[in-house]
């Protein structure tokens, strides 16, 4: 897919960050319902290209729901209904006419709990490429993905062993390598380090910084320090009085942590609630 210059059209008066910057994904007026439950209301923000965007906020504020809308994972939940526009390469991928399978081939995902396939380390990485019709040298692809996920040195002598034999932190990096094998341009990460120990967490964070040179990364995190450490942009969500997830503030991470515009953001990042 050729990199289209995405012209940001402001369809809402909500705060939009950097409308002039190189935007990878622009989300406009996103609403998500689970049955009768209006979980996310009227969310609008942009995801800059080749940078880390952190989605933060208290539990239940819909940040994971927003993340899962970006690669149509909410389609798997029968009661979920997603409304609004998610523009990616100029296309509204939330359009029912768009096949979610194609979306997910371009927008990879890493989950909260490491979930490697019960297959060999090699097959974990190769499978996605295989089903998507990869034509080149598979051995080279597997090695380069494992290298980019900073796990090659640890697994190069045991590629035939099960992915489940690795430690939690290694499993998560294997899952990142697996996502890279599809050659996505966006990687979504849903609290990728919350199930890991501090050392493994640090490795994942370093990796996120490294990957942001070539990939657009959107990460949901509960950990404010983590958002401050790894992200270029931060989007803060909270609940309104009807307990719907709403976007409070979005901006450059450095600004937001030093000089939050909204009182609720300040309360959250200083640890007064959440």
């Amino acid at each position: 897919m050729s990199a289209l210059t995405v012209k940001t059209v402001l369809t809402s008066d909500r705060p939009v960050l950097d409308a002039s910057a190189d935007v990878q994904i622009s989300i406009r007026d996103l609403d998500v319902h689970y049955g009768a439950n209006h979980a996310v209301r009227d969310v609008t923000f942009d995801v800059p290209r080749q940078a880390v965007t952190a989605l933060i906020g208290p539990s239940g504020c819909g940040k994971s729901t927003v993340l899962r809308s970006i690669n149509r994972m909410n389609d798997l939940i029968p009661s979920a209904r997603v409304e609004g526009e998610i523009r990616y390469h100029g296309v509204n991928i939330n359009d029912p006419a768009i096949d979610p399978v194609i979306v997910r081939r371009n927008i990879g995902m890493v989950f909260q709990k490491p979930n490697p396939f019960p297959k060999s380390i090699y097959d974990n990485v190769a499978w996605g490429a295989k089903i998507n019709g990869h034509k080149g040298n598979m051995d080279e692809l597997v090695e380069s993905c494992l290298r980019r996920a900073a796990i090659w040195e640890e697994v190069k002598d045991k590629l035939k062993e099960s992915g489940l034999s690795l430690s939690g932190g290694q499993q998560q990096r294997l899952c990142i390598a697996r996502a890279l094998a599809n050659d996505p341009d966006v990687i979504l990460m849903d609290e990728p380090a919350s199930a890991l120990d501090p050392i493994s967490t640090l490795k994942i964070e370093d990796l996120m910084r490294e990957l942001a040179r070539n990939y657009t990364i959107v990460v949901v995190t509960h950990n404010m320090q983590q958002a401050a450490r790894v992200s270029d942009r931060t989007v803060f969500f909270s609940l309104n009085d009807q307990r719907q997830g709403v976007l409070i503030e979005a901006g450059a991470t450095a600004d937001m942590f030093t000089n939050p515009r909204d009182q609720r953001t300040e309360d959250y990042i200083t640890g007064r609630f959440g």
Partner: protein
Amino acid sequence: MSAMSGGADSVATDLLDSTPMRGRVRRARLFLILLYAAAAFTVGALGVLIGTTLIDGWRYLSLDLITNLPSRRPEAAGLYVALWGTVMVIGLTVLFAFPIGVGAAIYLEEYGPKNRLTKLLQLNISNLAGVPSIVYGLLGLGIFAVWFGLGRSLITGALTMALLILPIIIIAAQEALKAVPPSLREAAYGLGATKWQTTWHHVLPSAVPGILTGTILAVSRAIGETAPLLVAGASAFLLFKPTGLDSNYTVLPMQIYNWTSRPQQEFQDLAAAGIIVLLAVLLLMNSVAIIIRQRYSRKLRG
């Protein structure tokens, strides 16, 4: 006591004193004894059954038993025809019931919408698992033997048996599919896999051990069934093994039933030997499933 010896010492005394725990410990022990008793009763009953069968039948256990044709003389009578009948009927039954059963389970769990129709289907499948087997015999007689014109043939028997075990396989396969963690499906979908790729490459292999356990139970049920085949047309006395799908046939439980209904003690003992052969065939057939299951669970554990 605490007033006399001060704070720390009273804590120590309380820690050392097991009086308040005594009731709980006793209850735990009692429960354990009950569990042992239940297990011992089950295993004991099975042991007595197999033991008396072995004592009665061991005299007739020889190669002749499985190579001889049926006969009026107990010393010459064998299970050759019935053994072949059982192996062929059960083999065909699994061939029909396994793919259809697993396919139905995949549809219901992975593809089918969760609406009133599928709920009704689900309820009916559960009910069918509880229908007496002789009803399946009548169904087989009516549909396969008469309506399809297949007669009292091997294929009628196998199709009837397949109907009988289909609900068991469907329910077991559904449970096995339900037990596959959603995170595995998400991992595959997240890589841009289609529903079929996700199901075929990941969900189904993870469910194989559970599906095979259900199949073992179903085959064990089918191999011992006499009533449906009695109705659907197994022969009582046959001097040749089945040669094709349209052959007449008999099965081991039919032969055993035939022997037990004779007055001579020799035939009673022969029936006991027949039961041992039946158990051996059951174990042999199930061992295939058990070996595949072990290989898959080892692979999945990693």
